[in-house]
């Protein structure tokens, strides 16, 4: 399909409704159908690995990479336990996870693999992998979201994963598991009445979706702090998924963006979005926050494409 080390990137929501209750609300169904479309696209891609960055797997000791070759258990969500259990059996690429750790450490990060029976894979990762890769056709690894990490650390983490891909020659689909606005209703609702929590959240979500549709991932990365302040419940220090996704995918704006679905999940903004590296959209987008490693002089961002 393509020689790109990143075949494409997906941004998907963490809540279990599309997996456990797709028929409870037409919006959940549309999210499920979008997941199914992405599943088909992964099957048709040349991807060797799926790399998941999950905002619902927090870590403290640096960055953790899931490496259990056969990660199996039955998970139950803390809030949505009444919707049912989530049995899973995932094939992880232990060697690639180890390579990511090595590369992360070589860039100064604390990192380790996690390979333990009964390790509690998080709701978001289970939902994503169960729907995107149900038969384990492609091995995966899951990356934790360090609760203290901020911009530079998260961007360096993405770069280290990119280093591992370049060194191994593997082609990847990267998956970010995160809501857009993440404010849920704090009381039970009838699923049929689900809607985005507020007009403000909806407005911001739609603005973010415009950026995604325009392929402007690096711009989103640089808007992360504003997004965090505007539509994220302040549970963690920052909104990190766009930093990680942009960094892992190459820090530019040259993607073909497609929003496959955008719906409410108990009030939060859930979207299934695909970004595919492109060479056809150069010249009309620019970003201006400098890279985090050292000053390179003028970056000529308008001339840079999606090359690895």
């Amino acid at each position, binding site marked *: 399909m393509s020689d790109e080390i990143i075949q494409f990137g997906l941004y998907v929501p963490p809540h279990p409704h599309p997996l456990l209750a797709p028929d409870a609300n037409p919006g959940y169904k549309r999210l499920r159908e979008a997941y199914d479309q992405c599943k088909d696209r992964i099957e048709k891609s040349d991807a060797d690995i799926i790399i998941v960055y999950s905002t619902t797997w927090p870590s403290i000791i640096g960055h953790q990479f899931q490496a259990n070759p056969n990660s199996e258990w039955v998970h139950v969500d803390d809030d949505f336990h009444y919707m049912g259990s989530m049995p899973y059996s995932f094939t992880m690429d232990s060697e690639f996870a180890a390579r990511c750790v090595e590369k992360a450490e070589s860039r100064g990060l604390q990192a380790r693999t996690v390979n333990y029976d009964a390790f509690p894979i998080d709701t978001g990762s289970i939902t994503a992998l169960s729907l995107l890769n149900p038969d384990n056709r492609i091995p995966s690894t899951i990356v934790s979201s360090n609760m203290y990490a901020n911009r530079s650390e998260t961007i360096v983490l993405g770069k280290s994963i990119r280093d591992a891909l370049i060194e191994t020659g593997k082609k990847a689909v990267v998956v970010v598991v995160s809501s857009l606005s993440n404010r849920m209703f704090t009381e039970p609702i009838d699923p049929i009445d689900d809607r985005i929590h507020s007009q403000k959240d909806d407005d911001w979500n739609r603005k973010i979706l415009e950026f995604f549709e325009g392929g402007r991932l690096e711009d989103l990365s640089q808007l992360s702090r504003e997004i965090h302040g505007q539509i994220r*419940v302040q549970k963690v220090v920052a909104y990190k998924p766009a930093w990680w996704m942009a960094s892992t995918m190459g820090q530019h704006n040259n993607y073909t963006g497609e929003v496959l679905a955008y719906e409410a999940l108990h009030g939060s903004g859930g979207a299934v979005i695909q970004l595919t590296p492109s060479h056809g959209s150069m010249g009309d987008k620019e970003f201006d926050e400098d890279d985090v490693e050292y000053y390179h002089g003028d970056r000529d961002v308008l001339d840079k494409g999606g090359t690895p």
Partner: protein
Amino acid sequence: MPKGKIVLGTLAPHPPHVVYAENPEQNEPISEGGWETLRWGYNRLARKLEKIDYDVMVVFTPHWQTYIGTHFLGLPRFASKSVDPIFPNIFRYSYDLKVDVELSELMCKKASESGLITRMMTNPDFRVDYGTITSCHMLNPKWDKPIITISSNRSTHYYSPEVMIEQALALGKACSEAIEESGKKVVLVSSHSLSHRHFVTESPLPEDMSRERIYNHSQYVWDMALIDLFREGKMREAIDIMPEFTEQTIAETEGGGLIWMMGAMGMPDYPAEIYGYQSVIGTGNCIAAWVPEANKREIVL
């Protein structure tokens, strides 16, 4: 039937390191010890609890985080393996515990009647969080009493520390009413640390005590300020400064456990028993107990 009552309330931090250091047969990893100041304090409190007549231990945990109200364990038995997602290298614990569903349902009902959003958790595959398991193991290693776990509603972040305090106090009052109505004798457990800033690196040997210290002096000073109020029996003042304490030390009090317990115990104005204070991977951890019956109180430390 005589009224039920709270016989003891304890602040019981749950870093899994203390279970790891004890080397119980339920936990897979083997350690060379560590964190003795906390563990010996726990051991002493566990010995005291052995001599106290109680029916059930009720645990409020910040590691069962719910956004849609407060949830209560609602099946008579849970057996599984708990692996800490943060520290899986030191905590992989097989548990088999009993739940007092009758009292749990009554607490849920009373909380609901007081206007709080509540839900019973009745999925048999649910894994009980490691905070509950760590605190309960350290307080009652025999696991010969039923427990109830109450989730932590995340209203601090969704609304404000002040809203969380109001809700946690209301939940405590509702739980207290349920306990009275049940006729049971209950130990309350507020399972959390005080200051909660972690180091983000770990020594090759986690129990290497030459590497253990509080994250910074500010955290220590704040922890001591709060513990002084515990010692002086000034719990109203402690709750009053809680928003600032939580903000300054990223404290685990943000989950509401201690406030819930104080609400249930009628805001004690008598000194707490202090069993120990020690840092674990940089966080500040204090074991304290409040005993309503004056003739059963001790000066421990």
